[in-house]
């Protein structure tokens, strides 16, 4: 007889999840008790799924109870597999099909204005995350998961990477710190994760360790798509080593800052005005820029205060950041709109770019706007602004033709 193990969640307010208990027995076959909110419509299909998974793991005799609050199949599979793994640790996995929609690769320099944190053990928040169109979603295995739920969250995150359509958002996972974080990689690297967030990064060696593990996992696979890394600077040591971390590997695409931990580390508290973190934020911006990657700001935690958020984004943009984290879907639009080039910015950039094209057409080496000379970096910035405006539907692709 095995011990009784539990996974998943139940109770008031729990939706789209299930609670599984499993006890291996030495005979009697599979005795399944299903209590499902959607029994009338999906009872048979849930029973079939459960029997299929038990069979996959060669379990012939067990008591299984499933209390279901409308969990989707990928959730049921994750919960049951996590329970089986608790009861009989083994190498075997139950891999659900990879959605075609999830096969994409993301580019190194894509927009990363917004990345939406999703607690790694809360399926109800994952299912609709993509419809809010964040640039990225983060399935969080670290701080958003209770310590005793960290094992089962891995199965859920793995299944979400394969089975949830995030509608083109960059699919990111924040792994845990240290050894646990390296072990997390087994559950995400083979499943086309686009980017890994590395928490509490203080030394380039941490990036190297992650990359070594990715390579190791990759040896047993046909071919892995590129996996980007976003180290998060959350300590004084991290700030001091920011450039070394930013330039530690080819696949490091951005450098983020986490201010809650950082302010605690330097012995102060986070304020709205933020002078205590000015140095750290500037360090991260400069380190990232020096390494040619994107600096990304911390989250703004008052989800009800949209004006405060917009103000925060404006400050962040002014400091040189290219994006920030969000903890609620409603923050996404404010972040995008505020990071996007403003109307006046676009108008000014159009004039400069027009002047640049005219100069080029006339074979002139110098760009001038009226009597004013325009320096090359200013032209470059204007070109970037235009490109961004087009990407964000603020400007038509053929704006120069339609102007004429």
């Amino acid at each position, binding site marked *: 007889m095995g011990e009784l193990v539990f996974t998943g969640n139940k109770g008031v307010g729990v939706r789209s999840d299930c609670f599984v208990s499993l006890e291996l027995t030495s005979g009697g076959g599979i005795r399944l008790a299903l209590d499902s909110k959607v029994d009338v419509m999906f009872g048979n*299909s849930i029973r079939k799924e459960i029997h299929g998974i038990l069979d996959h793991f060669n379990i012939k005799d067990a008591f299984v109870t499933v209390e279901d609050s*409308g969990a989707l199949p990928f959730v049921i599979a994750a919960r049951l597999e996590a329970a089986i793994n608790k009861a009989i640790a083994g190498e075997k996995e139950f891999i659900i099909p990879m959605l075609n929609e999830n096969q994409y690769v993301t580019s190194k320099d894509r927009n990363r204005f917004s990345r939406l944190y999703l607690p790694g053990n809360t399926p109800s928040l994952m299912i609709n995350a993509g419809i809010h169109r964040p640039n990225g979603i983060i399935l969080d295995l670290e701080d958003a998961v209770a310590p005793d739920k960290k094992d089962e969250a891995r199965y859920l995150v793995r299944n979400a990477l394969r089975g949830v359509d995030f509608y083109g958002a960059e699919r990111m996972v924040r792994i845990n710190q240290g050894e646990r974080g390296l072990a997390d990689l087994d559950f995400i690297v083979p499943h086309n994760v686009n980017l890994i967030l590395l928490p509490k990064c203080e030394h380039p060696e941490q990036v190297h360790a992650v990359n070594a593990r990715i390579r190791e996992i990759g040896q047993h696979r046909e071919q892995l798509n590129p996996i980007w890394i976003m180290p998060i600077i959350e300590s004084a040591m991290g700030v001091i080593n920011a450039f070394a971390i930013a330039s530690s590997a080819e696949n490091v695409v951005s450098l983020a800052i986490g201010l809650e931990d950082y302010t605690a580390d330097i012995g102060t508290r986070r304020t709205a005005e933020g002078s205590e973190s000015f140095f750290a934020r500037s360090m991260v911006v400069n380190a990232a820029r020096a390494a040619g990657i994107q600096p990304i700001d911390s989250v703004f935690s008052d989800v009800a205060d949209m004006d405060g958020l917009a103000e925060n984004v404006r400050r962040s943009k002014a400091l040189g950041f290219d994006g920030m984290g969000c903890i609620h879907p409603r923050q996404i639009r404010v972040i995008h709109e505020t990071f996007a080039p403003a109307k006046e910015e676009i108008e000014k950039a159009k004039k400069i770019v027009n002047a640049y094209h005219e100069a080029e057409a006339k074979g002139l080496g110098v760009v001038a706007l009226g009597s004013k000379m325009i320096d090359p970096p200013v032209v470059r910035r204007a070109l970037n602004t235009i490109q961004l405006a087009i990407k964000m539907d603020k400007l038509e692709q053929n704006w120069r033709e339609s102007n004429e």
Partner: protein
Amino acid sequence: MSKYDKMVTNTAGREVPTVVNGKPATPYMGIGKYKPTGRKTAPPIVSCADYPADGNKVVASLTEALIKCGIKDGMTISTHHHFRNGDLVAVPIFDSAKEMGIKDLMWFPSASFPCHEPLIKYLEDGTIHHIEGSMNGALGRFTSEGKMKGLGVLRSHGGRYQAVQDGDVHVNIAVIAAPSADSFGNANGVNGPAACGLLGFALADSQYADKVIIVTDNLVPFPCIPWQIQGNYVDYVVVLDQIGIPEMIISGTTEITKSPDRLLLAEWSAQFCDEAGLIYDGFSFQAGAGGTSLSIGIYFANILRERGWKARFARGGSNKYLVKMLEEGLVDYILDGQTFDLEGVRSMRDNPAHVNTSPFTSYNYHGKGNFSSLIDVVILGATEVDVNFNANVVTHSDGLLLHGIGGWQNCLFGKTVILPIPLFRDRIPVIRNEVTTLCAPGELIDVIVTERGIAINPRRTDLIEKMKKSSLPIRTIEELKEEAEKICGVPEKPKLTDEIVAVIKWVDGTILDSVYKVDK
């Protein structure tokens, strides 16, 4: 008497009885196809000689009033839902009837709420024979399980007025709870501890019932102004300590939603209306009580404010958000059918531009027109929609009857009807091959807005044309259904018996569909 008899297939292809609770019933024939004949019903002629000359109609208790009204077995007793879940009047009526040993009453509420669950014991012991009205929550479950002696009849608010006016339902005794009344029976809903705004749902009953009782906890000296209910219709006045629980009268569904998914639905719905040219200076809209619907109101307000436009009127349930629009000058009039919070009550009491309406003015299909077809944009909910845009609002996909129709069917006559609904709720897809219960013919529903795409009814070629260049995700309804099934799986059909427990009336009194007993 059998609950129902003589099944036929109606124009909508649904099996419906032509005898309901012993009375003949007409099957649904199509929108606007059934032509009523004859004359409206009328209450008995009475004489002032039989009423106190000093105008004082107060009697000592509800029981005394019921006795004086001649309560007896088999009568129809009506109540109204303007106190929503805070109603303290309906249950005591049947407590009294039980004490008197009265049997087989028909309860004819304008809607029922969870607070009416105690009435189940009277359905079980035969005090109440059956309910014609909405059957919510526990009463719906009781009905679904086939435990009610008679057949449930569900009508819209307009259908209820029509049924009373046409004599389909003969109300013997109407009991009208009134937050403020005088001893003559003049009554209103804007003053008193149980203030709820208006008493429009009771209008038909006051006009057509044989006997009318006003129940109040706030008796004022004659005259009670304004008189939303006229005392000249009233037989008796009863004063109780408390007729409603104020905090329950204020409905819980009247805050704007915080759910990001629902806000997205609201935002897209408003954007859709804007891009389709449905919003203009002087437009009108139906304001609902649900969180999504309220949020759409906020987006409408933003659009109007930005462009310096005004809505001519907003119809429907009022609350603080709508009142704010009125006071900010973003809308000229609120035509209010149901007041949802104290701000709404205050505004209705103090602001002449906040007008109380009734199912007669707004919804009655057997009238010389009604307001609902004048409205530009109507936003409604639904439990299910099918690929032909037919919609269900009373049963869930497992077949359980859990909601009433309310003004929902009546509002379908608005110029553009939009249903913002999630593509699936937990694992339950909302778009089906066929609705479990038909409450709305698909030809009246124009747009379905889900978080994964927006489907326009193919009949609305004008809207399809206008939205061709939209950045919104316009899809076909089949595509949306497939997407939901890809995520959730294909649901099995609920196991229903072939026994009918209730019927759904269309706005003209014909029978649109049947509700079946669930298989336990």
